[in-house]
C-alpha cells in the first residue's frame, strides 16, 4: 500500500518518569511491553509445571509427586497459566496492543485508561491462581486439581476448600481483563483507522485481533456465568449443578465449552495474522487471496460458536446431536484449509529468505496441518469414543497450541523484536532456540498420538508398564525443549546487552505494513499527523 505522509521521527518524545510510565501507563506500546513481559514470566512458570509433569511421567510409579491430587493440581495450573496468562496476554495484549494501532495508523488505543486496567487485572488474577496452589483443597493436598475444565461436582462438592474459590476469582479477574481489552480493540479498529485505511485494506493481524475480540466479548461472559454458578453452588447453597437439588452437572460442561471452543480460536486467530505478515514479508510478495484470508478468519470465528459439544461426545448425548456437531465441526476445516493453501500460494513465485521468523512460520504451517488433521479425526464421535480423554487429545491440542499458537508467538516476537526494542538479536542463538524447540516439542507430542490410540487416559499420575516406552521418549523431548527455552532467554538477554541498533525497516523490501515506516523503536507518540493510505 502507498503511504503519502510517513511519520516524522521523534516529534514528541516526552516520556513520564519511571513509576508513572510503567504503573499508570496509558501508552499502548508500554502496555504491550508489560503484557509481553507478563506472558514470558507466566510462560516460564507454566513451563516449569509441565516439565514437572513430564519428569513424573518419565517412568511408571511415583517419583516426584506424593499423590494424584498434587499431580493434577500441577496439570490444572499448567493449563490455566498457559492459556489465560501466557498465550492470550502475548498475542492479544502484547502484540495486539503494540501493533494494531501502528498497523492501522492510529496514535493509540481508543480507551488508554481502560487499557491500563486490562493489564493490571492480570497480575491480580495470576496471584490468585498462584495462591490457590498453596490453599487447602479440602480433599488431598493443597491446590485445585479440577483440571482446567473445572467440571462439577469435582469442582464443587469435590473441592470444598478455598483453593478452587481462588481459581474462580482469578479467572473472573482475567476474564474482565480480556473483556475490557476486547472492547478496546473493537472500538479502536472500527473508529481509529487512518484516512484511507478501509476494512478491506487493513492488515491481517488487525483482522485476527478484531475477530478474536468479538469471540472474547461473546464467549467470556458465558464462562463467567458458569464460574459464578459454581461459586454460589460452593458457597451460597444453590444447586445449579447438584443433581440432589434438581441441578445438572452436564449443564456446566455446555456453558464451559460454549466458551471453551471459541477460546481455542481466540488463541490461534491472532497467530494466523502474524504468520500471514511473516510469510508475505520473507517471500517479498503481497499476501495471496487477502479477502479470502480475512473472511476465512471471520467464518472460523462464526462457526466456532456452534460446535462446542464436540468436546462432550461421551457425556451421553442423543445420537442426532452428535451427528450435528460432527458435521458442523468438519466445516471448520474448509476455511482453515483456505488459510494453509493461501500461505503456500503466497510463497509460490516468491523470493524466499529463511530468516528466524520465517523458520518459525514455516514450522507453524506444517505442524498446524498435523494438529488440524487430528482435529478432523476427533470431530468424528465414532472415533472419539476410542480416543476421548486419552493422550491423543493431548497431542492434538498441543500441536495446535504448543506448536500453533506458541510458534506464532515466537514468529511474531522474532519478527518484531527489533521494532519493539530497537535492538537486533544474534541469529545463531535465535536459530538454536528454534531448532531445539522444534525438535523438542515434536518429540514430546508426536508419541502422545500413539499412546492415545493405545488407550492411555489423560490426567494420570501413574500408568501401566505397557505405556512406558512412548512416555520416556516424550519426557526426553521435554528436556530438549528446555534447552530451547534456555536459548530463548539467552538471545533476548544478549540483544539487550550488546545493543545492536535496529534500523527502521531491518527486513527490507517485503515488510510494507505501516509499522515499518516508523523508527525502531517507534516514537513514544506516533502519527501526530495521520498517515494517508491510498
Amino acid at each position, binding site marked *: 500500500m502507498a503511504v503519502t505522509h510517513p511519520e516524522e521521527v521523534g516529534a514528541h518524545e516526552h516520556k513520564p518518569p519511571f513509576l508513572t510510565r510503567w504503573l499508570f501507563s496509558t501508552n499502548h506500546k508500554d502496555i504491550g511491553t508489560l503484557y509481553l513481559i507478563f506472558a514470558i514470566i507466566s510462560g516460564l512458570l507454566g513451563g516449569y509445571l509441565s516439565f514437572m509433569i513430564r519428569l513424573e511421567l518419565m517412568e511408571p510409579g511415583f517419583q516426584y509427586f506424593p499423590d494424584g491430587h498434587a499431580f493434577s493440581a500441577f496439570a490444572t495450573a499448567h493449563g490455566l497459566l498457559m492459556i489465560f496468562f501466557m498465550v492470550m496476554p502475548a498475542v492479544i495484549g502484547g502484540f495486539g496492543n503494540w501493533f494494531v494501532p501502528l498497523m492501522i495508523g492510529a496514535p493509540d488505543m481508543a480507551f488508554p485508561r481502560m487499557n491500563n486496567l486490562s493489564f493490571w487485572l492480570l497480575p491480580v488474577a495470576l496471584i490468585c491462581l498462584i495462591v490457590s496452589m498453596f490453599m487447602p483443597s479440602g480433599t488431598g493436598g493443597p491446590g485445585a486439581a479440577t483440571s482446567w475444565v473445572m467440571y462439577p461436582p469435582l469442582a464443587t462438592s469435590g473441592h470444598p476448600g478455598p483453593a478452587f474459590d481462588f481459581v474462580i476469582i482469578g479467572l473472573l479477574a482475567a476474564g474482565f481483563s480480556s473483556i475490557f481489552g476486547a472492547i478496546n480493540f473493537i472500538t479502536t479498529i472500527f473508529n481509529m483507522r487512518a484516512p484511507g485505511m478501509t476494512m478491506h485494506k487493513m492488515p491481517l493481524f488487525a483482522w485476527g485481533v478484531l475477530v478474536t475480540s468479538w469471540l472474547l466479548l461473546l464467549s467470556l461472559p458465558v464462562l463467567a456465568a458458569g464460574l459464578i454458578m459454581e461459586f454460589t453452588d460452593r458457597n451460597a447453597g444453590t444447586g445449579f449443578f447438584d443433581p440432589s437439588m434438581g441441578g445438572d452437572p452436564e449443564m456446566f460442561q455446555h456453558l464451559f465449552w460454549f466458551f471453551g471452543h471459541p477460546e481455542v480460536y481466540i488463541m490461534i486467530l491472532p497467530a494466523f495474522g502474524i504468520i500471514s505478515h511473516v510469510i508475505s514479508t520473507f517471500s517479498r*510478495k503481497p499476501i495471496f487471496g487477502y479477502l479470502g484470508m480475512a473472511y476465512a478468519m471471520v467464518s472460523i470465528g462464526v462457526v466456532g460458536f456452534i460446535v462446542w459439544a464436540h468436546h462432550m461426545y461421551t457425556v451421553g448425548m442423543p445420537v442426532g446431536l452428535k451427528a450435528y456437531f460432527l458435521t458442523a465441526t468438519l466445516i471448520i476445516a*474448509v476455511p482453515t484449509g483456505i488459510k494453509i493453501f493461501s500461505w503456500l500460494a503466497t510463497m509460490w513465485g516468491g523470493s*524466499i529468505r529463511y530468516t528466524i521468523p520465517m523458520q518459525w512460520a514455516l514450522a507453524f504451517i506444517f505442524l498446524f496441518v498435523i494438529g488440524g488433521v487430528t482435529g478432523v479425526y476427533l470431530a*468424528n464421535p465414532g472415533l472419539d469414543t*476410542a480416543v476421548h480423554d486419552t493422550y491423543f487429545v493431548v497431542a492434538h491440542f498441543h500441536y495446535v497450541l504448543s506448536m500453533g499458537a506458541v510458534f506464532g508467538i515466537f514468529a511474531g516476537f522474532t519478527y518484531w523484536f527489533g521494532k519493539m526494542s530497537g535492538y537486533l538479536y544474534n541469529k545463531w542463538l535465535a536459530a538454536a532456540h528454534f531448532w531445539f524447540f522444534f525438535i523438542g516439542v515434536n518429540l514430546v507430542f508426536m508419541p502422545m498420538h*500413539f499412546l492415545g490410540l493405545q488407550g492411555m487416559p489423560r490426567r494420570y499420575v501413574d500408568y501401566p508398564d505397557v505405556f512406558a516406552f512412548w512416555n520416556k521418549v516424550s519426557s526426553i523431548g521435554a528436556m530438549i525443549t528446555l534447552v530451547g527455552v534456555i536459548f530463548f532467554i539467552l538471545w533476548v538477554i544478549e540483544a539487550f546487552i550488546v545493543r545492536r541498533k535496529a534500523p527502521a525497516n531491518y527486513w527490507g523490501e517485503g515488510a510494507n505494513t505501516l509499522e515499518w515506516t516508523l523508527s525502531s523503536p517507534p516514537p513514544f507518540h506516533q502519527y501526530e499527523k495521520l498517515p494517508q493510505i491510498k
Partner: protein
Amino acid sequence: MRNLRFIGGTGLSATALSWANLTFAANKNGPTDGGLGMQRAVTPVMESIVSFNNVWLVPIMIGIVLFVLVLMVFIMFRFREKANPTPSKTTHNTMLEVVWTIVPVIILMAIAVPSIKLLYYQDVIPKADLVVKVTGDTWRWEYSYPDYENVDTIISNIVDIPVEEKQGLTHAQIIKKIEARPADEPRLNGRPYLLATDAPLVVPVDTTIKVIVTSNNNIHSFAVPQFGIKIDAVPGRLNETWFKVNKGEEGQTFYGQCSEICGINHSFMPIEVKVVSKDEFRRWIANGGSFGTQVSQNTQGAVKTVAAK
C-alpha cells in the same frame, strides 16, 4: 474384512494391511509397549472403529500431511531467494481458490458419510439380552445385574498398596509387595498392575449387553478400549451403551481405566471385564455371582430363568 461396509469397498486393502500389521500385535490383549495403533478389537463396534481408523481416516490424514509437506518443501526449494531473485506479483487466482475450497469439502464428505454410519451403529442400542448396571464411585466401580436379584452388587477395587508406601518404588518392587501378602488379600496372579481388580465384571460371550452407567459422586467415565465403549458416569443421570463380545473370546479378560478426572485416585480405578462362555455365565448367576462348581438348591429356580433367556 466385514467392516469395509462402512467405507463402501474402496480398494484400499493394501494400506489397510500394512497399517493393521502395526496395530494387531500378535493377537494380544491390552495395549502394546511402543505400539502405534489401536488395541485389538473384540466387539463388532470396535472392529468398525478400528477399520474406519486404519483403512480410511488415518490414510487420509497421512496423505494430507504428506501432500502439504511435499508441496511446501518444493516451494521452499524452487522459490528460495537464490533460485528466484525477482518475486512475482500474483495475488489472485480464482480457479485455484475455488479448487482448494471444493476439494476439502469433497474429502470431508467422504469422511462424514461413513463416520455418521459408524456413529449410528455405535449409538443406537440393539435389543439387549442382558443388562448390566455400572456405578462409578470415588474411587472404584460397582457392578450389578438388575435382572438377577440373587447376584449381589460387585464392588471392584484396584489391587494395590497404599500410596504412602509407593513413594520412590518401581512397579516391580510394588508388585513384589502385593504378591507377598497373606493369602486372604487380593493379589495380581500375573495380571497387569494398575489394571487388575479384586472383583471383575463378569459377562457372557456373544451376547448383546446393555450397560447402564451412573455415578454416586464425581463424574467418572466407564471405558473398555477393546470393546470400543466409553461413556461418562454422571451423578443424577443414567447413560447407556452396549457391547457384544465376539465368539471365541471366552475365558479372556479385558481392561479399561476411568476416563474422566474424578479426584485424587483417578488413576487407580481400573475396569476389569471377564468374558465367560454362556454356560459358565449361567452357572455363575445360579451360584449368586460365584465360580464355585456346586449349584445350591435354592438357586435352581434362577438357573431355569437364565437358561430360558
